[in-house]
């Protein structure tokens, strides 16, 4: 059976936008400090889920999108982040002051074609779908962050209706407590 293709959703009423009990920080949209801001957030995560800095990398991508594509690196504009971590989950909400992710449908369509090329092991076609170029993308945009994000944030990846706020959830498998029983 063909696996359904994951896509970026828009759902203002998603329970993922419930900020109850979440920690909060806000930053100016300073491109040079994206990784520093990310570290300030990730430092509150338990070591178990920081898995070879993948959590940091994935959070950094979402903050970068807000700083660069949302707020166009205008330091007068803020990026607001709500976050909550446990050994079983990472929940992040990132809001910018920009016009919202206008290319969302285009991106989902692009991703469907990309998935079709991947499933068919069609690397020639895939080469046309390795990077998504939004209208305002520049040469330093990889154009691939959201492909990885949709895979990583397996508990959900959803935008509000204005599309300037994204909420993401990553679920981590429960670790068994290693208790040795000797006979």
């Amino acid at each position, binding site marked *: 059976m063909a696996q359904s293709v994951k896509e970026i959703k828009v759902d203002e009423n998603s329970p993922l936008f419930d900020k109850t009990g979440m920690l909060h920080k806000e930053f100016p949209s300073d491109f040079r400090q994206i990784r520093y801001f990310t570290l300030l957030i990730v430092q509150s995560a338990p070591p178990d889920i920081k898995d070879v800095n993948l959590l940091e990398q994935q959070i950094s991508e979402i903050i970068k999108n807000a700083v660069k594509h949302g707020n166009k690196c205008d330091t007068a504009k803020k990026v607001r982040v709500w976050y909550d971590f446990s050994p079983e989950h990472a929940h992040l909400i990132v809001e910018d002051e920009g016009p919202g992710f206008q290319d969302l449908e285009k991106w989902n369509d692009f991703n469907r074609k990309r998935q079709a090329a991947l499933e068919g092991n069609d690397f020639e076609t*895939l080469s046309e779908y390795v990077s998504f170029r939004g209208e305002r993308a520049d040469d330093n945009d990889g154009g691939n962050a959201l492909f990885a994000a949709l895979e990583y944030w397996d508990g959900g990846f959803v935008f509000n209706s204005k599309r300037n706020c994204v909420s993401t959830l990553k679920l981590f498998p429960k670790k068994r407590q290693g208790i040795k029983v000797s006979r």
Partner: protein
Amino acid sequence: MDLKIRKNGESYIIDVNGEMDLYNSYKLKELVMKMLEKKVERFIINLENVDYIDSSGIGALIYICSTIKKMGFKLVITNIHGSVKKVIELTKLMGYFPISPTIDEALKRMEA
């Protein structure tokens, strides 16, 4: 990020040291483009000392890979590990990039 070039036969090995992130990745792209201008045709990009990559780093590798492929030259990326491997796996590009586990195997692949 620090880049060092060494030569082995006809192949040029680029040792990447540090983080391939949004602040640094363009340097690798620029270096490869300069080497192409100087008629280099065989590249090995060694990621043994890279423990962090983001979408800009992946984007740089995609750009380099597609440029070298279009020109009909050779590229192998080696020693992918840790989070670098995981990020490439998340983008599902392990099959797209020409990857060898070690430099020795990359050199053999160059001769094939």
